[in-house]
């Protein structure tokens, strides 16, 4: 088991390494010369050259990549803007802030958004899914599954603006979503994120409703579940002890993936609600073609995804002894 996890982690590192290469190459195909950006209004070719030198853009790409890696691992003082301790993604071209610092600044927003949302949609989604499966074929079931079907076909970029328009702009019931530091003011933190949470979790929950229902129903058809019934175990007992356990496996898988990609930046959500999280950061860094930042976000986000995958694998072991003892 442990060996398994270690192996997976190593694999993740390899993937990250490859990813960094691909991303790095990708962004040095960027259409816009970052130096030109920094050069500003009164820019001369000489000045541009100089900037290229400062940014190290004149070096061959492999060398640039190598520098990037070494900085990442051991930090660097080579930056004009100042020292850059490991993990050093360098300084943003646009804001001249340390990339790692910026990432850490934006992280709380994304984490709050994601975890808050996750709590909502897991509880609602799994709950309704179980109820639907328990009451299979009844009106409740049909309402839940039908509703879930429709909602899961909605997009955040529709539901989000809609919620904003109605709750914020038209009725002015809520303030425009914003991130407030939890430690500073929990109430504001909650109030600022409630709409994004609701919208995000509504859409996700609907998917989890469908998933948990169907996987529950599959489980209920398992032979061992029928055996348990044949043993005289009560329906509730079998439902929760036997069927549910098994139904969790596909859900945990999906949840891991969702959580990972959300933690890596809930791009559209953050963009829609103007929340200063990693996703928004990513979009900004693209628009400013801010390579160090973009590279940072990409790798960070990928790390999140891989981490969550590993966590999921670990979770399997708890749910399914076959994995634990294999």
């Amino acid at each position, binding site marked *: 088991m442990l060996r398994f996890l270690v192996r997976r982690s190593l694999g993740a590192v390899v993937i990250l390494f490859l990813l960094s290469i691909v991303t790095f190459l990708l962004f040095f195909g960027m259409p816009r010369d970052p130096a030109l950006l920094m050069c500003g209004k009164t820019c001369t070719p000489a000045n541009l050259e100089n900037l290229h030198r400062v940014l190290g853009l004149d070096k061959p790409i492999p060398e640039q990549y190598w520098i990037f890696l070494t900085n990442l691992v051991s930090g660097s003082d080579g930056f004009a803007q100042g020292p850059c301790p490991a993990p050093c993604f360098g300084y943003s071209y646009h804001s001249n802030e340390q990339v790692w610092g910026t990432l850490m600044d934006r992280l709380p927003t994304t984490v709050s958004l994601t975890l808050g949302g996750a709590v909502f949609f897991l509880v609602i989604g799994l709950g309704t899914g179980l109820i639907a499966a328990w009451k299979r074929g009844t009106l409740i079931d049909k309402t839940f599954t039908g509703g879930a079907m429709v909602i899961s076909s909605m997009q955040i970029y529709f539901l989000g603006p809609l919620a904003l328009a109605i709750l914020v702009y038209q009725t002015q019931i809520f303030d425009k979503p914003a991130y407030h530091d939890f430690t500073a003011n929990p109430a504001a933190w909650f109030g600022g994120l409630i709409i994004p949470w609701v919208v995000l979790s509504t859409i996700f929950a609907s998917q989890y409703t469908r998933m948990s229902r169907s996987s529950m129903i599959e489980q209920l058809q398992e032979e061992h*579940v*029928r055996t*348990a*019934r044949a043993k*005289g*175990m009560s329906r509730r007992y079998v439902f929760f002890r036997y069927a549910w356990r098994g139904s969790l496996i596909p859900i945990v898988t999906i949840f891991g993936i969702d959580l990972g990609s959300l933690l890596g930046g809930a791009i559209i959500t953050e963009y829609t609600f103007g929340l200063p999280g990693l996703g928004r950061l990513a979009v900004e860094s693209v628009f400013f073609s801010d390579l160090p930042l973009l590279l940072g976000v990409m790798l960070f986000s990928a790390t999140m995804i891989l981490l969550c995958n590993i966590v999921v694998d670990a979770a399997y072991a708890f*749910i399914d002894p076959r994995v634990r003892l294999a």
Partner: protein
Amino acid sequence: MTTLTKEAGAPVPAGADAFLSVRDLHVSFRTEDGVVRAVDGLSFDLERGRTLGIVGESGSGKSVTNLTILGLHNPMFTTVEGEILLEGQELTTARESELEKLRGNKVAMIFQDPLTALSPYYTVGRQIAEPYMKHMRASKKAAWERAVEMLDKVGIPNPGQRAKDYPHQFSGGMRQRAMIAMALVCDPDLLIADEPTTALDVTVQAQILDLLKDLQQEFGSAIIFITHDLGVIADMADDIMVMYAGGAVERGTVHEVLRAPQHPYTWGLLNSMPRLDSDPHAPLAPIPGTPPSLLHPPSGCRFHPRCTFQDRVGGTRCVTEVPLLGPDRSSACHLTADQKRTIFEEEIRPRLR
């Protein structure tokens, strides 16, 4: 002896000592394609300590019958008519809670594939202990000890340790033993074994069958043994009921049915079964045609579309009139008793030898 002119569908008076008595059972499912009559007017009795073997091809309704006895059917889609009396208690109308008290306690079931039939998520011990805790109101500890004891009984070496294992750590045969232990943990009066050995290889089969027999001696419980393997039946059962398309077509003691089968379908079964002592060059004769659709069952004798002896009956009785089955040694066929005897003696037996 049989009386072919018995009045249609009349319930046979339940034998006083009949422990389980199924009377004119009808089970049908609603499907999008229409109503499927999986069991259609089935009646049989079973006495304590005896073993009833039910033979028949897939879809003849044997498993359905037994699931229905335990009430393991989905009321949303299923309608059950007729009566199932267990020691005089009516099961078809019994409340879910009532049935739960019976299941695994008075009536236990062994399923075909022990791998899928055991939960991968819990230790074998726990799964055996569960029903004991529930039905015997036993403590966790007591139940566990009982589980270990049962595992020991079914011949699992070092049961104390193995009880802590998960099913996937068991071999196929051991799993089936565990299944049996689980079924017998509350020493049930009726044990329903639904093809318990089909998934196992021959040697293990034998062991399991012996085990079952020994245990039956010990617990004195009645067994309903479902299979499509006449060999196994010969070995296990006291009585045989041959089912076809949701109804019984022939019944009698093992000896009667296997030595002097009366129903063309039974003949077919025997034909299609290879034997060690039979001539290897003699071709096996499978039953022609396919099992009938239970959606639109054939009129008259359900077997007539596949029956090669219709002409012997003469007229259209086979197509129009439903042949009936008597309570004891009997078969549901319009052929006369003599015809049956002669046809078997002269046309079937030679092929079996």
